[in-house]
């Protein structure tokens, strides 16, 4: 069975470490905040200028001056800091964020990522995505392994305009967890009940498959 969005978030959360500063993109990445392992602390960075993002506010706490990068109302945890957009991207560009999780349309064997622009469709902009992928050493891309029409999103070469070149090393799809190295995808784990054959079939870029591919496990 392919992973649900929640399971994808759960699997990503296993990459967290105590004391990590983390930037979560919109969509599945946002859900990762719900699965922080017990006894572990991570701090969320929001690129509009907030380090230490907290829960959504209660009705009483709603404050128009307190939003995240998705323009949602949020709160700050004790020990948070708030700063300008340039200070925020200095952190990001300077590689100070420990982990960045974001979605994509495509990734390829050279670590290229396309996530912001589909030619012929209206382009709304890249927001902070190009800065995030260029600045971070440790990025996890979350996306479905193939499109609804069955077309692989793990390619020999991205077909869409890039968000960043050579910057992705880890990909979690609904079918598998893979790493990118030496111009190849390396299959590391598969979703429970998903066969290696299915993953091979749906991966267009060169794929290295080890003898044993462990299944992911999820706590109930």
């Amino acid at each position, binding site marked *: 069975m392919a992973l649900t969005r929640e399971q994808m978030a759960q699997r990503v959360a296993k990459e967290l470490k105590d004391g990590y500063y983390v930037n979560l993109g919109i969509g599945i990445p946002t859900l990762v905040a719900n699965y922080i392992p017990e006894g572990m602390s991570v701090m969320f960075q929001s690129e*509009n200028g907030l380090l230490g993002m907290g829960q*959504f*506010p209660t009705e009483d706490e709603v404050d128009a001056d307190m939003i995240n990068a998705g323009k949602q109302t949020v709160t700050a945890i004790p020990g948070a800091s708030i700063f*300008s*957009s*340039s200070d925020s991207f200095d952190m990001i560009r300077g590689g100070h964020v420990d982990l960045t999780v974001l979605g994509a349309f495509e990734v390829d064997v050279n670590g290229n990522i396309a996530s912001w622009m589909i030619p012929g469709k209206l382009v709304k902009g890249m927001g902070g995505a*190009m*800065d995030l992928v260029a600045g971070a050493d440790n990025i996890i891309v979350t996306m479905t392994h193939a499109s609804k029409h069955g077309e692989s999103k793990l390619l020999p070469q991205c077909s869409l305009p890039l968000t960043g070149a050579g910057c992705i090393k880890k990909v979690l799809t609904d079918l598998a967890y893979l790493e990118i190295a030496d111009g190849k995808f390396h299959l590391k784990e598969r979703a429970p009940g998903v066969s290696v054959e299915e993953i091979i079939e749906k991966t267009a870029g060169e794929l290295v498959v080890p003898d044993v591919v462990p299944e992911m496990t999820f706590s109930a």
Partner: protein
Amino acid sequence: MSGFDKVVSSYEEAMAGLTDDMTIIAGGFGLCGIPEGCIKQIKSMGVKGLTIVSNNCGVDGFGLGILLEDRQIKKMIASYVGENALFEKQLLSGELEVELTPQGTLAEKMRSGGAGIPAFYTATGYGTPVGDGKESRVFNGKHYILEESVVGDFAIVKGWKADRFGNVIYRKTAQNFNPLAATAGKITVVEVEEIVEPGELDPAQIHTPGIYVDRLIQGTFEKRIEQRTVRAK
């Protein structure tokens, strides 16, 4: 110290000198921390052919979006413009030009524009359409592209409190692009919720020193929320 009193009493005075085809740098992120009063004044002045540098372009009927209604904007330099039907329409019809710029690069273009740094290298956008036609270069084995700074004829800024000398502090995440915009205007106009006397703000906690501020006005703000998200108590 009258020479440093930046307070003006009307938005007419605040935006005096703005003419067609000027470049305006605007603070704000989405609808958070936007200079609402200055934008309304620009609309009522009817100036045309503007280049606006701002992370976003407001929404239909609010924020910078209202400047689209009478086609006052010629070119928008922004990182994300997806919240605005009129924007899309004018873009598709070719009435409006847009230069999409990564958010961090946009922030740094403003900051370095104000800081006398005409250009800087960043890895952001290398190998993407943003890097097309720009000089690229390797430092320590990594690829970077050269980005040039921006300055505006005007900068319009939303602060929280300021003293009469134009020392400004911002409130929470309404800070965003505002302090950067403030440095990058030939004429910088700041609207705030409260004006206090010099000496009332802690000198070590000023976000924008008064040297950057030419005109200061007290306004009232609607502060519209784009994504009201709440949790149960």
